[in-house]
């Protein structure tokens, strides 16, 4: 239930922004249906608006979403005994948000296939509902800034990050990664900073964990 409520305003913000950036209603909805990746959709809308070409948009999407590979790999050991078609469907709807929820209950994933898949479907359904509401509202809203809609994604990341920080090592990992990403971004890396900071941050965090255990 919390994910449903959390998704609607963000999908709404995406729908409004896409409408304002000149995407057709069909294309706006299509992206929520077949890409289903919150941050990448926001970034793509910005790129479309600035007239970036298809190849650059696709490459950026790939880089920004490469983190899902690490997320999928971290859930994979818990997906024991799942049939290939369920895995294929489960992976399709694996996003930052659904991943955060699954990983907090990862131990139960192999026996709760139905719950896991229904959680994914509910999440995408509310994302699509939010998108549709946003598309409708896009014509009525003159400017998104007075509503704070451009803050939706950051606020959601804050909620998810706090949910992930259940031990000191995780907090330290997040700080490492956040600082590195900021430094790389300042150095002019505006796409690869996420994946590089994630890998380096998690590695440093692991070093701290091993050092504490010694």
């Amino acid at each position, binding site marked *: 239930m919390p994910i449903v409520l959390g998704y609607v305003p963000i999908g709404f913000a995406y729908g409004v922004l896409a409408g304002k950036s000149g995407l057709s209603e069909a294309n706006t909805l299509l992206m929520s249906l077949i890409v289903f990746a919150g941050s990448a959709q926001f970034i793509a809308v910005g790129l479309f608006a600035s007239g970036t070409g298809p190849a650059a948009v696709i490459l950026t999407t790939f880089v920004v979403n490469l983190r899902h590979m690490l997320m999928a790999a971290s859930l994979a050991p818990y997906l024991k005994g799942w049939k290939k078609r369920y895995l294929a469907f489960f992976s399709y709807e694996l996003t*930052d948000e659904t991943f955060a929820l699954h990983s907090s209950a990862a131990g139960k994933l192999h026996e709760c296939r139905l719950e896991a898949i229904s959680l994914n479907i509910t999440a995408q359904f509310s994302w699509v509902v939010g998108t549709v509401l946003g598309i409708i509202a896009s014509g009525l809203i003159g400017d998104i800034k007075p509503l704070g809609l451009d803050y939706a994604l950051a606020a959601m990341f804050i909620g998810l990050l706090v949910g992930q920080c259940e031990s000191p090592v995780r907090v330290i990992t997040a700080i490492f990664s956040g600082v590195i*990403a900021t430094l790389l971004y300042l150095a002019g890396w505006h796409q690869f900073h996420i994946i590089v900071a994630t890998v380096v*941050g998690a590695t440093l965090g692991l070093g701290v964990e091993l050092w504490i255990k010694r």
Partner: protein
Amino acid sequence: MDQTLIFWTIVGMAVVTYLPRLLPTLFLSGRTLRPLIASWLRLVPPAVLAAMLIPSLLVREDSVDLGFDNLFFWAALVAFSVAWKWNSLFATVVVGMGLVALGRYFGLGM
């Protein structure tokens, strides 16, 4: 850009988004990873979320800005405490967006 071209770009985005999500689950499901790799992967979620979030809060026009006009940063401090206290995604998103909207209403920030 032409809507047909946008359509095909979105199809391309779907492919490059789906494959990295799919391949690890297909090839690693049920395998027991080496403990060190498993520990590393457990740290990926906080790392990736922080990597996406922190630059967007701190950086304004290519430099770190913690002044009062950086609403995103100040709203984040409150949003973090809301998330911490109530553990609710919805409350965090609504409070965060509400504060940014309120700040702008009073003429702060961008």
